[in-house]
């Protein structure tokens, strides 16, 4: 593959360059402009438009937004549906048992929160940011980090457009440019590909536990109005997952007779045959759920990895010339199943840090001090023991969580550790049971192709495959042999497949990269860490509307 090293690249200088127009990046930008309107800020976003790659439950806690834009109601924020009731279910195969709300830890109570589409909130935050003078460039991917000779981060390079699959420029070739920032903020979300590089290069995680991830699915359904109760929040644990696999469902009754239904599964699962997608499809057939969906219509589908490691896995978030914010670092509060408010707050703290850095010559390490003093840190501290306790299994973990969260409110005098990275947890195929999933009925459950179709994902043809194998022989030689190629099961978009070549009769590893919905699961779960997700041509990927 030819590297276009000799290209003269244009440079555009800014005070602050932000990578990613999600909740954390947009909050950073808005706060920066509030602190000093003269600070020049740009945001680069790989989706074709702001919000296009955002996928989240989402039950929204307004705490950070109340601080950032206290008059958000008057400004017309798309935050309308107050949580009116909630239910927490233990499911077994046939039935479900409700847990009384008073027994739920405070973190799981949603009174005062709102059911929102995070994508639409981001679209709105984008408009606010632009009205304050922030320049947002959707449709451009930040493909590389730019360093100076002293290895300080000084900005990013946007991806070249119009490059063919061999790496040669096409007629439409448009070289990427360099966006230079006095400070660069990485707000790519969970498993950002530049964030990953920074964490490795600056050893930001040398004092943290291995990061933990989950994969989350979401579908939007329009359901029978008589079954809909706007503002209702439902969560479940248990069936169809076994007690050893971490995960659960959500079902939120939003506006317009729509429900947001989804499933999250910890990527530390052990059986290589487990298919998170199929667990989710199966979940929808539970009698407590399918009655809700019958007669309804699925209108959206999507999936995205999320970060679950919490405080123990949080890397150092500052480095020379740059900051990590939101889930690019990992600020999600797992027991609360919420990351938007903490991501936003982390961005606002980053903005305060940058303000002091630009105008009072403070070191960027101030970020850590301010972060530790903030309510985000307190929240993450109190939540820290919940996720690791789940390695004991569902019931012991729930009992522990009850004691930890209800009686001690997260103040137990010890911290449980995350012991393994998610790519280390798979058992060998020969030691695992094959799982037989039910057939899709096309009414409640659907196959992957028809689901992927709903994401509107698209990548321009004839471009470099953005799912790169460090060693192209490993999928067949190692992953297929030892683990029966789990990528086929864990990818929520059917990107990976094993096919037998008609001529050679050998197995071949197929990568349908144009199906990719940018969830990053393969980059996380691949046992030998052989798959590297890089940015495709800007504008590629899913086109989520109201996710």
């Amino acid at each position, binding site marked *: 593959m030819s590297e276009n090293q000799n290209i003269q690249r*244009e440079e*555009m200088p800014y005070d602050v360059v932000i990578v990613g127009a999600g909740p954390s990046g947009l909050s950073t930008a808005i706060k920066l402009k509030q602190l000093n309107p003269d600070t020049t800020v740009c945001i680069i976003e790989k989706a*074709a*438009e702001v*919000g*296009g790659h955002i996928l989240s439950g989402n039950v929204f806690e307004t705490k950070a937004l109340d601080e950032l834009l206290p008059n958000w109601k008057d400004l017309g924020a798309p935050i309308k549906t107050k949580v009116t009731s909630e239910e927490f279910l233990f499911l077994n195969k046939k039935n479900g048992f409700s847990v009384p709300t008073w027994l739920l830890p405070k973190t799981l109570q949603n009174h005062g929160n709102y059911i929102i*589409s995070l*994508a*639409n909130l981001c*679209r709105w935050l984008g408009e606010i940011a632009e009205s304050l003078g922030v*320049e947002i*460039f959707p449709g*451009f991917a930040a493909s590389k980090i730019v360093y100076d000779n002293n290895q300080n981060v000084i900005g990013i390079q*946007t991806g070249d*457009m*119009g490059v063919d699959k061999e790496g040669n420029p096409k*007629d*439409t070739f*448009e070289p990427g*440019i360099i*966006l230079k920032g006095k400070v660069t903020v990485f707000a790519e979300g969970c498993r950002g590909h530049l964030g990953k590089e920074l964490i490795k290069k600056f050893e930001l995680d040398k004092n943290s536990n291995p990061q933990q991830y989950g994969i989350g699915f979401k579908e939007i359904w*329009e359901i029978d109005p008589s079954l809909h109760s706007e503002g209702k929040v439902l969560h479940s644990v248990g069936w169809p997952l076994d007690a050893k696999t971490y995960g659960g469902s959500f079902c939120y009754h939003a506006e*317009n*007779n729509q429900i947001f239904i989804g499933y999250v599964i910890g990527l530390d699962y052990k059986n290589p045959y487990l298919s998170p997608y199929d667990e989710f499809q199966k979940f929808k057939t539970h009698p407590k759920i399918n009655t809700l969906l019958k007669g309804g219509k699925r*209108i959206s589908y999507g999936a995205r990895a999320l970060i679950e490691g919490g405080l123990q896995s949080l890397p150092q978030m500052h480095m020379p010339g740059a900051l990590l914010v939101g889930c690019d670092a990992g600020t999600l509060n797992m027991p609360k199943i919420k990351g938007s408010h903490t991501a936003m707050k982390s961005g606002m703290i980053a903005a305060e840090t940058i303000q002091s850095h630009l105008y009072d010559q403070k070191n960027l390490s101030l970020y850590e001090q301010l972060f530790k003093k903030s309510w985000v840190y307190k929240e993450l501290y109190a939540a820290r023991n919940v996720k690791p306790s789940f390695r004991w299994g569902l019931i012991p973990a729930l009992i522990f969580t009850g004691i930890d969260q209800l009686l001690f409110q997260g103040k137990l005098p010890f911290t449980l550790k995350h012991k393994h990275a998610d790519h280390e947890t798979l058992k060998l195929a020969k030691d695992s049971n094959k799982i037989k999933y039910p057939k899709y009925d096309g009414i409640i459950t659907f196959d992957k192709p028809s689901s992927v*179709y*709903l994401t*509107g*994902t*698209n990548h321009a043809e004839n471009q470099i495959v953005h799912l790169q194998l460090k060693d192209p022989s490993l999928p067949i030689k190692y992953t297929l042999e030892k683990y029966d190629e789990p990528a086929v099961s864990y990818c929520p978009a059917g990107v990976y497949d094993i096919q037998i070549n008609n001529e050679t009769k050998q197995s071949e590893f197929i990568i349908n990269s144009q199906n990719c919905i940018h969830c990053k699961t393969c980059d996380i779960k691949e046992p030998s860490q052989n798959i590297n997700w890089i940015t495709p041509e800007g504008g590629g990927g899913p*086109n989520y*509307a*109201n996710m």
Partner: protein
Amino acid sequence: MKILVAVKRVIDYNVQIRVKADNSGIETDNVKMSMNPPDENAVEEAIKLKTSGVVSEVVVVSIGLEKSQDTIRSAMAMGADRGILVKTDQMLDPLAVAKTLKAIVEKENPDMVLLGKQAIDYDCNQTGQMLSALLDWPQGCFVSRLGVKDQTITISREIDEGLEELEIQLPAVVTCDLRLNEPRFASLPNIMKAKKKPLDIISIDNLSVDTNSRVKYIKVEEPPVRKGGAMVADAKELIQKLKYEAKVI
């Protein structure tokens, strides 16, 4: 020489179209919008002609909501010189669009109007032809090659028999096929520059054009769901089924 390019803001071609729950139309809330693809070819062709020195100015016009400014800005980021937005909240029939464009042509006096052959939202494929008739200018439709020499253009268009080559006197209306060219990517610096290019906004009411709709939309429905096929054992069974079940032979 001056070229006027008409562009339309439509639902992006990657988006899965959804009918509104009350069947009154297509869901557009928070749906990604972008420039109608054949219009991009029209913009690209105009800019190419400008780069080659034949054309001195490329003006882009769009008719629609305030948001259509984004589409005009995209065209200007590709290289168009200035933009005109004719603002209206009304949904216009192709005839009303053609009449509005005629009013703009009379103001701007271009030598050529370039349009996409049709818009991917309603697939009408009428505006260019109607505009040509209203202006009493020659038309070249579904153009996959365009050459300009003095006051004449030569075009290629795909027809059933093959390629038709035509010579047309300017001024003329030309509608562009997707094969005409490959639209360029707008670079970041050009997107920045486009923000500063002039964009006039005119209200459609100030053009005294009859925009009354001749078409009434009654209901929008999704196509019926395709029923699954069935496997037959042999030709005999197939004929039986076609004859007695499907009753088509």
